[in-house]
């Protein structure tokens, strides 16, 4: 308002509004950009993923005991819900028995399940279904930046820095060699002196180039490049300095990797742009893990699963049986008995438990574990915990006969080598290893329970312990 020109006295309020709103963006523009390379704006994840589950909630208006009006508003809201109950979205998916997995092809459902609770995985993407975006971009059409792109960029940058570091190291070595050759010719001042001088604990002269240093050096170099070219022109005063370059192979590789990203689309655009745009159709579907599907259907009631020919919905109790049969390969026939420790049930118990605590549970196969736990979701932060599920057979039933004992032994045995292996991998990716023991109940009751899924799940028990390497060297104080 203060920046308003004084030449327009007494403007109407609307005009003032308009003027101020006009001024604001210009102020934004005027503000100097602090970053040298502007980071692309991240999408507002906080808004996109504001619902933790694909269910809508209708909170009651706050009730203030001393304010009678608030009581009225509460009653009113009750009434409105009574008269016109809010519509709860019911999403649909279908079970593909050939791949033993649940698929979703509807665009809207895919977005909803991903955004509200991070369910499923794009069949052609790393996790979030982003194939269409990437494909559009590849064909030169508009496309946002996907997480795959971000990763690729980061990797390119890191590779460049590493090459830079290698170059600097090589440079240092060549310089050293030349100095040594010169010293030999002169026959004086052997570099032994140098080596001895470093024996005061820190070998400072052999200091390695860290990535950070390489980055700094690169920046410095770009600043001084003008000077350096002049110096190089002036003569061969410093012949060793500029001889070291990327090896031709590396340079070529870099060129290729750049060209695939940038040049391919341009060649395509000329000819087929018009056709492509109309033809481009989302080929990707969302794939839910069986645990996710059951949780959405049984736990939340937000999903209905159709059978393979997409005609009939599968009721929840049959869905559980179906998934349990399909947790073996080849799937068990419907006639066969189901075990209380079949892989699906054990892993569903764990999935449901951590989901019910508010964790975002996703597959941990890339880290060699069963699940990884995100707080709020993968777009916000890295997963902190990695879960390994181990069935446990501690109830007396399992040690009654020799056969059962052998079965239990076989199912729960994990070697120390395996444990250390998993543990070291998790430490490398900065996750905490959690071992989740699931107590398996005896089977006979399971039949008696019939179709009561809740009672069935209630007979399992979860106990989790964290495992971490203890380093005595570092725990002294």
């Amino acid at each position: 308002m203060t920046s308003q020109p004084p030449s327009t006295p007494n403007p109407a309020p609307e005009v003032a509004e308009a003027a101020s709103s006009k001024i604001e963006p210009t102020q934004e523009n005027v503000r100097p950009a602090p970053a040298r390379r502007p980071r692309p704006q991240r999408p507002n994840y906080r808004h996109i993923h504001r619902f933790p589950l694909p269910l809508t909630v209708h909170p009651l208006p706050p009730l203030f005991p001393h304010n009678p009006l608030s009581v009225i508003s509460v009653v009113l809201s009750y009434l409105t819900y009574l008269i016109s109950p809010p519509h709860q979205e019911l999403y649909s998916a279908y079970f593909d028995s050939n791949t033993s997995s649940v698929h979703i092809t509807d665009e809207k459902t895919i977005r909803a399940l991903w955004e509200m609770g991070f369910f499923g995985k794009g069949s052609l993407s790393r996790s979030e279904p982003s194939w269409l975006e990437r494909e559009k971009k590849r064909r030169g059409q508009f496309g946002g930046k996907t997480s795959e792109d971000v990763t690729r960029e980061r990797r390119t940058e890191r590779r460049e820095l590493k090459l830079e570091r290698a170059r600097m190291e090589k440079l240092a070595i060549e310089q050293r060699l030349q100095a040594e050759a010169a010293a030999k010719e002169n026959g004086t001042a052997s570099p032994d002196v140098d080596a001895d001088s470093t024996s005061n604990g820190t070998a400072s002269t052999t200091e390695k180039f860290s990535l950070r240093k390489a980055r700094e050096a690169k920046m410095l170099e770009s600043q001084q490049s003008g000077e350096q070219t002049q110096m190089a022109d002036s003569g061969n005063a410093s012949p060793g300095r500029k001889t070291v370059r990327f090896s031709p192979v590396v340079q070529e590789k870099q060129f290729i990797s750049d060209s695939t990203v940038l040049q391919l689309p341009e060649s395509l655009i000329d000819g087929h742009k018009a056709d492509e745009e109309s033809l481009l159709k989302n080929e990707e579907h969302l794939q839910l893990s069986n645990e996710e599907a059951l949780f959405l259907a049984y736990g939340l009631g937000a999903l209905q699963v159709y059978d393979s020919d997409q005609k009939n919905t599968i009721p929840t109790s049959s869905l559980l049986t179906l998934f349990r049969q399909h947790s073996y390969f080849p799937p068990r026939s419907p006639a066969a008995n189901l075990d209380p420790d079949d892989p699906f049930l054990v892993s569903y118990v764990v999935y449901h438990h951590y989901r019910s605590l508010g964790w975002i549970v996703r597959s941990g196969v890339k880290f060699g574990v069963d699940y990884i736990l995100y707080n709020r979701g993968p777009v916000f932060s890295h997963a902190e915990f990695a879960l390994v599920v181990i069935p446990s057979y501690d109830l007396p039933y399992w040690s009654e006969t020799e056969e059962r004992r052998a079965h239990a032994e076989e199912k729960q045995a994990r070697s120390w080598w395996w444990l250390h292996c998993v543990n070291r991998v998790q430490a490398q990716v900065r996750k905490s290893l959690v071992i989740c023991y699931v107590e398996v109940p005896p089977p006979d009751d399971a039949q008696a329970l019939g179709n009561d899924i809740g009672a069935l799940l209630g007979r399992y028990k979860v106990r989790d312990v964290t495992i971490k390497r203890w380093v005595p060297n570092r725990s002294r104080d």
Partner: protein
Amino acid sequence: MADTDEAAAHLPASQDSAPQIETDLSDETQDFRFLNNLAFPSDSSQTSLPRRGEKDFEPNPTLYQADILDASRQAMHNALSHPRLHHPKHRVIAFYAPDGPAPPTNVTEEKDEKETTTNEDDEQNPKKATNADAGTGIGVPADSCVYVPNPKGQYFKSMGRADRWNRVWLLPEEALYLIERGSLDIRWPVSVTGPTAEEGEKDLGIPMSLQAAYACFTGRGGLSVERFSVYTGLRRLGYTVIRAPGWDDESDEVQDEESAPQQGLGIFGRFLHWLHSWNSSTGVTTTGPVVGLGIHRSYNDIYRKLAVIPYHDPVTPQFPRRKTTAPFRVVFHVYKPSTAFRKSAPPTPDFRIAVVNSRTQTTMPTLSQLGTLLESTPLDPPRGEKMDRMLYMRLRHGYRNVILAVVDQGVVSFLRVGDAAFGKEKIYAEKPPGPKKGGNRPRPKK
């Protein structure tokens, strides 16, 4: 988003994951030139440890690198070839007693006179009369087999147990540790070797070799090679290590459980359980949806309804208490070097360690083995100002904890096991972090 995690591995440690760094100095190849820095033979005034240099990853043709390598090698040879001297003033002589603790032979007559003072002695040492002590009658553990008539030096502050003749009795692992590091000169008893001294000389017996010490002491009184590896490794690092009550197979660690807070939580737990059963009795869990079909008022309600899987609560005591089985039992209590330690009244240990031989126990513990082991340790809930703030830290710390030392043919790897109880932390109730305050840019007020 798996690949973003991969990236995290290369980033500098964030504040939260700082204690996660798992590099072990002993894993690195060393630049031994730092050894030149150690002032031999006996300059103890220099207390700062030497730093190691950086390492080269591949050979290059420079003389410089070759010189460094030579210098480093030379430094190591110097360090190794340096003669280690034992000053006669610091020499401690001990005697091996193959039959266990016994009163000295030449003072049996005095024993009757000293009878009266015995009670006073016992009062002076208010140590717990454990089972092991009871058998000997002279107030030292029955497994002791080496006595030091004239103890001196810092080691006896945290080792051994004195009898009333002022001799310090050492347990086999203590004696072996001391002889291994050259701090103790153990003599064979005259009864074994026969008289060796000349006429008129005091008979001290024949010195015991290190090999003989290993042969005599390992396997004695429950000391396996695995237990000794753990003991000696931690001792060398400066920890104080003592036997835990779980050392012998019969006795079990007795823990003092505070009953008052647990009672309250127990009631609370029961109430929750009742809520649980009440909730499930409504029947929605039969075929779902668990959250019900009505209007949901808040996500927290939804999460509460979803909680149908029972979980283990480490706070509620388990009855009946199960007995731990070897090897999953606490055999060592470990104290940090900074913890004030008194032999006569050991404080609460900083760490409890169970030793596992990975060649005989080839699989990791089952739930019952691990559960009983954890339940034999006292409750150590994640409380404190920092813990209350940091959810991940609470979960990592757990309600009980124990350290497994897995020994594979002499190589010891330690694993800390914490009873996490994720079920007790409802993260849906945690507030999401507020909008980040923009660094130096004032936020628009709109």
